[in-house]
């Protein structure tokens, strides 16, 4: 028990549609993360599951029950909030046991369960403290203890780590994963931090403008994004997009051309296509030994270098009069690549680069839908298998 099923959920506020026909099927024990930009409807979707807002249309099923019209307390869920939301007038014990006391558990059972929950989140011996006497991380643990003490079917976590400092956030991330392993309960987690999404989830649900874009395991979202939004949102820095057209020889744009047989990927000559390639799949021509199947050389000029320590991001300008801009996803004449930290390249150097054909994504420019992930020189249709083989 503990599966969550959303069917055709729509939530409208006056004339704004916050959630638009959301369909989700989350399995028992799964860790699913909702990611998306601010205001994309991920929190509204979460509140709909929690029962804090009622959907305009559609049904919510939790553990096989239709809970669309049930109040939050009868849904078998618990929630951890972004602002932690501990009751400031109660000590830790009262905070954790709040839900149990409301449900008239006897005192011994309450004590036993609170002790157990405090042990899980490592808060032993702090049950008499008031929330204001605790640090941010401790408060967040109390909030988590309050959520797990009732043994809910489903945990909802609405950006629980957003208000913690960076170091604590990484620590709590591991704690949450440990907790999930220990409790084995369904967890639905809302975040806009894609590092959290990538590291913790079984599946990521990418949401934009109230619509579900893709729900898949993290690496599938990364390697086979369903559309340009997912491709651009997952991965940092974001994927390069180059708009172009299909010719008989393959993809053609002003500065980059990639040749393949259009028939193999199922596109017709003349259709508008967006080519996507991640920065780590752009290589200097001199380092093609890492690439099984490189595209034709592209000459470029380096613009800005961003050394990150373990790698260096290089902004490339493809034409002489290209405007310097950090936003590579917007311009067709710019390309972002990452390379080894020991590179000898400096600013304003002329270099030539190639793309790894097996990691090139093709999207339909008009709809943004993915057409193909990876291209092969051979006649074989580009598939996931081809991609995996080439990455070995």
């Amino acid at each position, binding site marked *: 028990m503990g599966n969550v099923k959303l069917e055709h959920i729509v939530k409208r506020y006056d004339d704004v549609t916050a959630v638009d026909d959301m369909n989700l099927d989350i399995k028992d024990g799964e860790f699913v993360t909702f990611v998306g930009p601010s205001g994309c409807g991920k929190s509204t979707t979460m509140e709909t599951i*929690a*029962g*804090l807002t009622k959907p305009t249309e559609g049904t919510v099923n939790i553990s096989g029950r239709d809970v669309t019209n049930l*109040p*939050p*307390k009868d849904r078998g*869920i*618990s*929630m951890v*909030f*972004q*602002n*932690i*939301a*501990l*009751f*400031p*007038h109660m000590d830790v014990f009262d905070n954790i046991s*709040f*839900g149990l006391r*409301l*449900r008239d558990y006897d005192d011994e059972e309450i004590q036993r369960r609170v002790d157990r929950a405090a042990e899980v989140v490592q808060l032993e011996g702090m049950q008499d403290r008031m*929330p*204001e006497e605790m640090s941010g991380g401790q408060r967040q643990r109390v909030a988590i203890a*309050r959520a797990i003490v*009732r043994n809910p079917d489903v945990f909802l976590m609405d950006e629980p780590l957003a208000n913690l400092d960076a170091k604590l956030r990484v620590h709590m991330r591991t704690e949450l994963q440990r907790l999930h392993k220990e409790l084995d309960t369904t967890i639905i987690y809302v975040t806009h931090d894609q590092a959290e999404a990538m590291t913790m989830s079984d599946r990521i649900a990418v949401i934009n403008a109230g619509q579900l874009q893709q729900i898949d395991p993290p690496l599938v979202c990364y390697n086979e994004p369903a559309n340009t939004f997912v491709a651009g949102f997952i991965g940092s820095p974001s994927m390069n997009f180059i708009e172009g057209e299909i010719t008989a020889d393959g993809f053609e744009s002003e500065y980059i051309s990639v040749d393949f047989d259009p028939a193999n990927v199922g596109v017709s000559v003349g259709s508008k296509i967006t080519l996507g390639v991640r920065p780590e799949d752009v290589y200097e021509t001199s380092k093609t030994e890492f690439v099984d199947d490189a595209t034709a050389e592209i000459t470029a000029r380096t613009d800005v270098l961003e050394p990150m320590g373990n790698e260096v991001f290089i902004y490339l300008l493809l034409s002489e009069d290209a405007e310097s801009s950090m936003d590579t996803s917007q311009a067709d004449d710019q390309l972002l690549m990452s390379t080894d930290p020991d590179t000898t390249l400096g600013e304003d150097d002329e270099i030539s680069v190639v793309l790894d054909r097996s990691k090139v994504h093709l999207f339909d420019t008009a709809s943004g839908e993915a057409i193909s992930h990876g291209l092969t020189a051979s006649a074989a249709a580009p598939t996931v298998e081809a991609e995996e083989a080439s990455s070995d």
Partner: protein
Amino acid sequence: MATEKPDTHQVLMDDDGEEPDIKRGMFEAWAAKAIKNPKRTYKAMFYTATIFFLVTTLFPFYWLFQVALTPRDNLQDVGLVPSGFDPSLLAQGDITMGTNPGVFLEVFTLIPFHRYMINSFVIATVTTIVVIVVASLAGYVFGRLRFPGKGPMMLLVLIVSFFPPAAFFIPLNELFNTNIDILRPILTDGSLYNTPYAMVVPFSAIFMPLSIFILTTFYAQIPDGLEDAARIEGTTRLGALFRVIMPLSAPGVATAGVLTFIAVYNEFFFSFLMTDGSAENWAPIVDGILQYQGQYEVLFNVMAAASIVGVLPVAILVVVAQEKIVSGLTAGALKE
């Protein structure tokens, strides 16, 4: 820099040194110092204002107290001290020193004044409870929910509070003197006249708007997250209001409650007209005080004593509640 310092000091010393040369009176000297040091002025203003406030507030109480202590025979001659007060009598073994402290017992022996006090206390307490509960519901709705027509409705509450209570009196008096059949099982003659309901009901209505506005402001400040958390943990919206929102708004609830209690306890107009003035018929304190007024004599000293006794419960309440309000304000700083 270091060399400049003594110079400035020297200049100041010179100025100070000149002062004794001018012949100044006490006030002029004080004013001259105050111009150099404005803090003295602020301090003086503070004390002036405080003393003025204390005198205007406390002098009536002192006056009541000394009138109460004046022996009955000397009532035509009331001064700043009880007439007949003579400290030298203490040496002769008269510890009352010519005053009449026994008046505070007379208050209760002449008429059942304690009944009047209990009446006032019960009416004020019941009204406060009704007001806090109903105003909490209204404050929750106005402070935390969004719905069409919220602004006009709050305005309506405000407008109703502007009506003078006297405007409601005649229709209410008519209503409360009408025998209503369905009330017969609980009220002897089926009318509300001479019952506490005739006061609790209009008081609740009249003092409600103020409490609604106070509580609306306080409830609106409680973060949504806390209410959501309470609802997820297992309360209804109402449960969240009484278990989380109200305790966190304790200062506001205390303020609204104390204001309502004092206003009702001191109320005269409705209390006087909605009862026949007898203690058994829930007449409040003011009616009791008026009982000391006879046909041929007005017992001002007993009335004064009764007034002081009547004020005590409210004075105690305010002292206790103020401590609560202050502690609530300092501890209630919500950190999330």
